[in-house]
């Protein structure tokens, strides 16, 4: 969570969005978790059925996907640190190279 917070803050003024997709937390746990971890970014609540996880074939948590500006999957994995580099690369590419 702190790592994601940093990611969001770093790209506050960029063409970037972090979308959390919560899975398997009870409604109360979810609400408390958002507060406790200072989740200020968009987070979708799936409840127990997890249709979005099913759609993406996600079985392990956390799983990260990075999408480029056209919505194509540029990274899919479990490394929080890897996504930083991918995001930076994609942002740079989109701004015509930095």
């Amino acid at each position, binding site marked *: 969570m702190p790592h994601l917070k940093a990611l969001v803050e770093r790209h506050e003024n960029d063409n*970037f969005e972090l979308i959390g997709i919560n*899975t398997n937390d009870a409604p109360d746990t979810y609400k408390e978790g958002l507060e*406790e971890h200072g989740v200020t970014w968009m987070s979708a*609540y799936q409840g127990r059925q997890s249709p979005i996880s099913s759609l993406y*074939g996600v079985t392990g948590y956390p799983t990260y996907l990075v999408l480029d500006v056209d919505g*194509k*999957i*540029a990274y899919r994995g479990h490394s929080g640190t890897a996504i930083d580099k991918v995001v930076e690369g994609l942002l740079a590419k989109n701004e015509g190279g930095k």
Partner: protein
Amino acid sequence: MSSPTDTMKRTTFLAAALLTGGTGAFAFASASLGGTEPASAQESVQESAPAQDEVAALAAEYDKAVKAHKKLVKEAKRLERKAIRDQHPVKDYWPKFQKLAEANNGRALLWLADHVTDNRSIKRADRAKTLKPLYQALIKHHGEKEWFGDALNSLSKNAKMLEAADVAEFFKSAAEGTKGEARGLALLYGATALMKEDSETANRFLDMLLKDHKSDHVYTKAQAMRVKPADVVVGKQAPDFLGETSDGFKFHLEDYKGKVTVLDFYGFW
């Protein structure tokens, strides 16, 4: 769209009910199915609250009796077991529910459909004959009930006991007689139940779902039925879905095209 820096208000939790969709959790339907709109092509039947409680109480009684019966069977001496097994509580309860069903009590109709397999006096070959009128009545008269999702789930589970053509017809009627999330559910259950036996109808249902129900949570489930594991790897287009925050804000992944997006699948557990 709220930016990441927006403060999120912790408001009511309808999101949980909305997202569980499917069985039982049909509470959200009251918004779209509301008693204020006419039944259109269907004749809806309103049950009094006491009638609903009666079925619920009877069902609870039955479950208790079944538990006790199971215990009896387990503890009986081998030679006595068959005799005891034959005295299954369904013998007493089936007629009771049948009486209520004949008065068009929807919950009773559903109970019967869900317990056909308990009733050994109904031969396997006769199950379809028993089930058909039950589902016919449920779809004709109870499509606007907030528990109608349970009826769809039941039909889904019992689909194997019926002819595929009848199943297709049932789901089609159910979809025609409902709107909003309820219609979406009918189409989704229908697609799921028919995919093997009648993929043409199943895919037609999916097409309708994807076209008409983008703002309902069944949309994501419909997408899941179309998308294969090989479609969600690096290089492929990320499939669209409907998400909802705890504030009740709905969004589609497609809304974020043009931005570099990270999807973080996580849990606090």
